[in-house]
């Protein structure tokens, strides 16, 4: 995942699929699905489509969460302004909250 915590590789999906070191790579310098290996024989190797879809869902979940957070922020500021608060007063509240 990137520095903001947004998943950007199927390894991020696999890490969240099961805990522990249940998987690895036959070539760690080339982390593609074909090189995915399973260390824990109690776990089933997911399909490539599952990995792709899982990564996409993590990304969309992250993006949705970011969008919601931004929308909530904008909405909150709008409502506060409707109540008559100035920008400085809103900033002061943000520092407290």
């Amino acid at each position, binding site marked *: *995942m990137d*520095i*903001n*915590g947004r998943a950007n590789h199927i*390894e*991020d999906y*696999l*890490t*969240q699929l099961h*805990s*522990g*070191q249940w*998987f*690895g*790579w036959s070539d*760690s*310098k080339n*982390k593609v699905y074909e090189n995915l290996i399973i*260390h824990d024989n109690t776990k089933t190797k997911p399909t490539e489509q599952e990995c792709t879809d899982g990564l996409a869902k993590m990304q969309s979940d992250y993006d949705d969460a970011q969008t919601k957070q931004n929308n909530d922020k904008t909405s909150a500021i709008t409502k506060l302004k409707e109540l008559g608060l100035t920008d400085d007063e809103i900033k002061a509240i943000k520092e407290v909250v």
Partner: protein
Amino acid sequence: MGYIGVQPEAGFTSGLLDRFTSTTGSTVTLTHDISSENDIIVFVNFVKQDSTNYSVGGSGNKTLTLGGTLVSSDIVEVHYLNIVKLTQQPSANSVGVTELNLSEGTSGQALTTNGSGTLSFSTISAGITEADQWRVTTNFTNSGSSAETITANWERADVSFEKIGTGLTESSGLFSFPSTGKYLISALASYYPAGANSNIQFYSAITTDNGSNYSTLALALSGASGADRPENIGFNYICDVTETTNTKIHFGTVGATNITWQSNTNSQRVGFTCIRLGDT
């Protein structure tokens, strides 16, 4: 030069002589240090002088005071019987083991002193003989709040790195040492918290009975108040490895599914460096 009898091993040495002309006054300055009047024979106008009629003094007894006053036509010759030996610089490449109060050593040894004036050859430690670096290549999480050994996905660093010496041996997360000695272990672990967690640990433990019992030698503790940017924890320790068959170390983590240990195959994110400092 001719000789009679056995040929001298070295050539004859020339005597030392000072010759003073056009000198007035009662003193001349010798060119060599002497200890007393008895170390020289003085001639004035080729007449040997009685040693009781002249004296020496000054720095190095080099000021010769004669029994009378010279005129410029006088010739004074001073023949040295002895001179005070001064420190001499040996010629280049002329001093070897045989010139020193010292027994020859063996190849590769260095000259040392006991601090009391006795020199000897001794073997010098070769410096760093072992240095190795390992890391985990693949991200992982912990199943819960209990300690879990990192057993898989280890690799020796392979980007701009070359181990020194034999290096460690790894098997299922257990590291064996190549030789006895004192080893410095420096470890680092990066993690990404996706949520609050008050019990994040990264540790290393040692076994001296091939895995039956372990002692924790280092433990780094951390926590997260919520989802945040990646964090790092790490530790350093020195362990004394007195035998290599049953002595091994391993590394482990405590976290939960919301803590992703950020591993990488090109840089040290969860891994360690091991350097042998010296003998046990």
